[in-house]
């Protein structure tokens, strides 16, 4: 029964947003509680739907909760309708999203209070001046994320997707402006936030436009955007009716790739990943919420939603899934490598997010649908946990720079513990969530790549190798982070003194998330694959074929040990470099000995300089080549507009005056000459009439008579011919 109220789920946070924005924006505490209340209500309803969905079991996949009662717009004789659609993966998202959001909301209540030293030396605690604004925006974000999850229509999905993009923009740029009396942020931060927010929005905009194009083409070829209709037996086949658009590229491939473009930008995959590290300029809860747990995973969710299309494409010979796998696999290792050289505690996590998202995509790309989906869920929990814990550290210490931390576990043991749990999960160490999901992916890659009945697939082999390597590096940089932050000696005494254990509203959410991180993995162990049964057993809407699933076998066992070995290997190397001999105060990072490689890593392979733009620490930004080119083009266009286009118009506008002058000139020179000529013919001396216009009436009369004669001659010529 609850399913009929699914559409109300996003309404609560959206309502909270409206109330805060319009009514209570000056009341900080009240706004926070309204926001939290909104999420709690949404969570309650979501859990209701989730439980009802669980009760339905795997059958839900082919027969999902669905309704599309809202006519959004009519076109010609048809309409586009909005509504809700909940299938097993959707219901899992409905469980994950509000839970994580609620934790983050509660965490933010305290986090958005800042402490600084007043003039008299006392420590002052005060709310951020934009406290209410923060809660309004994250409410809007949560609402649209929930709307996205339950969307029944790709257009509806897209709208929610874009509103999230706006929230992301606004929250990255949360500190992108500064009033005269605001002293808790400095100008450099303002500059960085400003540039980062625009960078994020525009980069994702590129993907959005690709997605929109794909969506429109899908609409045109299939004739609908409603998921259930689209994936109905006839729907996708319609795509093959039309002429292939570009050469050998068939419609499903083109559309799938365009839609995947949206994912690439939103989930920060190579080459559009450049925005995510800079997005860490936002407040930490935002990083946790948007840039780790939920919004970036919306990109993955898009691929999950459109999975029948990708499968259909590969069945008809397209290469879209291979592309997904390739990009995912490459990004997984690429971002992991970059994560090695970051000193900002949040940026390390940001790159790890990119890398993990690559994991999911690689899994989806090779056909490991369930594994990828499960990693999406677990990753949300442990990445949120990591970010929040890192935020607690930042909040306590007052800096992001890991090289200025060290030995913090003594000062903040709870935070340390939760961070440790999250880090272990990320590395994929038993028994935390990441271990189970990551292991599943590696297992699938191993199985499909090397032990498939249909022969070896080089691409999947590449994916496996890349993912395995990435797992190693993940353990390495996570270990580095752990050692630099919490172990060794404090490298900056001032910050160390400043550090303190987090207040209860901060560590309680951490603890809850840590709990989830610990237990959620057991939802889908290789021995008892409940999640697999729920999500994968009956396939998907429009794809009613169960996803291939193998019972626990030898290979799985080997895989467990392999992945554990990789993780421990990475951790050991990290310990060898950073833990065994801790980096001292003022010492450079040992990795800097790598020279040019380190510099390449630290500057992210100079991609920003190539097609994005680089944001410096002091808040200035340097445009990359592509951006500069657009700027140049713009200035040229304006010059063109002013000088050429408008110039032509003005020419026409001045035509009259020019003509007037011409007439004057004409009178003065031509007519005068004629007059003088006629004067000499009649034997009279020139100079009687200087010009026609001197006011000499005889001049006028001459012209008139000449005119009459000309007419007469005209007539005569006519008559004689």
């Amino acid at each position, binding site marked *: 029964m609850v399913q009929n109220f699914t559409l109300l789920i996003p309404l609560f946070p959206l309502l909270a947003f409206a109330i805060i924005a319009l009514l209570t924006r000056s009341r900080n505490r009240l706004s926070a509680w309204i926001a939290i209340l909104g999420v709690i209500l949404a969570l309650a309803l979501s859990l209701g739907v989730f439980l009802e969905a669980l009760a339905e079991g795997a059958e839900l996949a082919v027969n999902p909760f669905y309704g599309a009662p809202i006519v959004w717009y009519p076109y010609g004789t048809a309409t586009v309708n909005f509504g809700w659609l909940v299938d097993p993966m959707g219901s899992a998202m409905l469980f994950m999203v509000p839970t994580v959001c609620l934790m983050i909301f509660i965490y933010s209540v305290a986090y958005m209070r800042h402490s600084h030293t007043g003039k008299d030396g006392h420590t002052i605690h005060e709310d951020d001046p934009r406290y209410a604004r923060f809660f309004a925006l994250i409410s809007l974000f949560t609402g649209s994320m929930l709307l996205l999850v339950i969307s029944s229509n790709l257009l509806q999905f897209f709208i929610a997707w874009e509103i999230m993009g706006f929230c992301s923009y606004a929250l990255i740029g949360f500190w992108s402006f500064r009033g005269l009396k605001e002293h808790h942020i400095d100008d450099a931060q303002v500059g960085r936030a400003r540039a980062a927010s625009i960078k994020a929005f525009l980069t994702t905009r590129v993907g959005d436009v690709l997605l929109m194009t794909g969506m429109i083409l899908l609409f045109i070829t299939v004739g609908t955007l409603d998921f259930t209709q689209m994936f109905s037996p006839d729907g996708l086949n319609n795509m093959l009716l039309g002429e292939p658009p570009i050469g050998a590229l068939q419609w499903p491939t083109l559309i799938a790739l365009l839609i995947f473009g949206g994912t690439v930008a939103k989930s920060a995959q190579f080459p559009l990943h450049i925005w995510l590290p800079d997005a860490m300029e936002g407040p930490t809860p935002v990083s946790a919420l948007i840039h780790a747990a939920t919004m970036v995973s919306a990109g993955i969710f898009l691929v999950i939603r459109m999975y029948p299309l990708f499968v259909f494409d590969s069945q008809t010979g397209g290469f879209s899934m291979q592309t997904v796998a390739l990009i995912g696999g490459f990004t997984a290792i690429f971002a992991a490598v970059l994560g090695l050289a970051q000193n900002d505690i949040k940026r390390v996590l940001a790159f790890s997010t990119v890398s993990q998202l690559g994991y999911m995509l690689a899994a989806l790309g090779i056909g490991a649908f369930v594994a990828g989906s499960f990693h999406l869920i677990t990753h949300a929990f442990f990445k949120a946990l990591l970010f929040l814990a890192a935020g607690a550290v930042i909040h306590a210490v007052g800096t992001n720079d890991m090289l200025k931390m060290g030995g913090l576990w003594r000062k903040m043991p709870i935070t340390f513990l939760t961070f440790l749990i999250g880090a272990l999960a990320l590395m994929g160490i038993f028994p935390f969530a990441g271990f189970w999901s990551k292991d599943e992916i590696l297992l699938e890659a191993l199985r499909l790549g090397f032990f498939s009945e249909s022969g070896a697939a080089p691409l999947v082999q590449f994916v496996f190798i890349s993912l395995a390597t990435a797992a190693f590096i993940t353990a390495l940089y996570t270990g580095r982070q752990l050692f630099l932050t919490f172990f060794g000696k404090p490298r900056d005494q001032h910050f160390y003194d400043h550090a303190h254990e987090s207040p209860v509203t901060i560590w309680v959410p951490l603890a809850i998330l840590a709990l989830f991180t610990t237990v959620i993995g057991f939802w889908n162990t290789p021995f008892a694959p409940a999640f697999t049964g729920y999500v994968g057993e009956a396939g998907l809407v429009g794809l009613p074929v169960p996803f291939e699933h193998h019972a626990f076998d030898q290979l799985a066992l080997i895989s467990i040990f392999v992945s554990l070995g990789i993780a421990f290997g990475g951790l050991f190397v990290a310990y060898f470099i950073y833990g065994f001999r801790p980096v001292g105060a003022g010492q450079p990072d040992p990795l800097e000995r790598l020279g040019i490689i380190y510099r390449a890593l630290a500057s992210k392979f100079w991609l920003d300089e190539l097609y994005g733009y680089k944001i410096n620490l002091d808040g200035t930004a340097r445009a990359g080549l592509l951006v500069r080119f657009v700027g140049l083009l713009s200035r040229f266009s304006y010059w063109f507009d002013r000088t050429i286009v408008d110039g032509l118009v003005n020419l026409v506008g001045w035509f009259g*005056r020019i003509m007037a002058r011409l007439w004057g000139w004409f009178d003065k020179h031509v007519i005068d000459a004629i007059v003088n000529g006629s004067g000499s013919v009649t034997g009279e001396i020139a100079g009687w009439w200087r010009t026609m216009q001197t006011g000499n009436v005889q001049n006028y009369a001459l012209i*008139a008579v000449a005119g009459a004669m000309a007419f007469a001659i005209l007539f005569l010529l006519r008559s004689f011919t």
Partner: protein
Amino acid sequence: MDGLVLLYLSPELVLIAAALLIFGLDLLWRGRKSQTLGFVALGALVVALILTPIIALRSAPTLPFGVEWGNQIALFCGACGQTVVDISYWSPQQIADALYVSDNLTNFFRLIGCVTGIVILLASYEYMATRKYAGEFYGMFLLAVASMIMLAGSANLLMIFLSLEFLSIVSYIMTGYLRENKLSNEAAIKYFLFGAIASAVMLYGLSLFYGATGSLNLVEIGHVVTTDTNYEVLSLFALALVMAGIGFKIALVPFHQWAPDAYEGAPTPVTAFLSVGPKVAGFAVLLRLTLEVMFVYRVDWVILYSLIAVVTMTLGNVIALVQSNVKRLLAYSSIAQAGYMMIGMASISGSSNPLEGVNAVLIYIAAYLFTNLGAFLVVIAIENKTGAVDISQYGGMIKRAPLLAVLMVFFMLSLAGIPPTAGFLGKFFVFGSAVNAGLGWLAVLGVINSLISVYYYFRVIRPMFFDPVPEGAPVITFDPWLRFGLVVSAIATLLIMLFPMPLFNLATYGAQIFGVAVR
């Protein structure tokens, strides 16, 4: 002589008689009470205006006003032929040597003439109040109106010549009316010399016409040239010379050059008259000539008319762009307006129904009349108080005289042909007839020209609204007569646009008199 002749000629007779009366009274009163004489003149014009529809009704008494005006001919002057016959132009074989006709076209121009006269008279009271010899002016003015009407009614080369000279001579006198004013004197003598030469040239053409066809009657000449091709060369040559005289009246390029000088120098009410009266009458003659005499040569004169139209409107508009004196600017503007009318003349030829072109010209004339007079009335009102005739002196007029400023905008819009004004309707008909006649290119040139014209018309408006009031500039007041004239012009300009049917009917009846003779 039939007694009806007097009735058919009554408007002209009333005007001439009133003029004589005014001369007499002025002599008697030795230049005093000139205001009264002005009212006498006004009364005469009103009477003439009322008489016109009576004449029209007389010819078809059973039908209500404005439906079917019949076609009456009044022959006049026994020395030249038979006495009056009541005969239609539509049966050319019965034509006698008629000098003067009182038909629908004449009636149309009677209305036009009387209205012109009344409006200008209203405007000239204040202007003349402070000047000498006002009484004579009113008399002269009545004669000018009468001659203008007579020109429109002339159906005979002799009569055309006489009326034209009548109108010219009166105009010369009125132009030079400000005897002590150098500009006025100069304008008059230039006007005179130019006019005299032009009419001599035209006269030469008329004599050739007479020689070629042996007749002075337009219809007869038309009959001859239609049936007999022998006279083609001579007739066309003569026609070209005649065009000089008519072109001079209308101020067509290249016979236009007197106009700016005369307009600038003449007293402004006279300028107003010059910009309407002779032009309108010239078109009446041109219409008669075109349709009754030389329709058979249409291939030739369509080229000629198109050429003249293009050159006239282009030159008028382009030179007007650089004028700073409002009177001179309006002079060039009226040259350009004549160019638009020539488009209508040119499009008489080609279409299946040539009368559409006639219609367009007549409607344009009526629209132009009110608009142009209105504009001149504004100029007069401003000149009366400040003596200003330069655009730069018009600053802040919206503060000093809001009514004048607003009406000036309206009249300028009308001259530029922007709705909802009579000028738009006129252009609409003219361009429409051009398109219909297959002269689309002419219409395109016409609209381009009307675009150019907007620029200078708005140059007049601009200081009135945008510039500040000059230091010490007086608030402009004007007497109720002038205000009345202004309001009448404005309302007429508006109503012609909003309710064009009466005018359209009038023009149609006016055009009906022509039966087109095709070889």
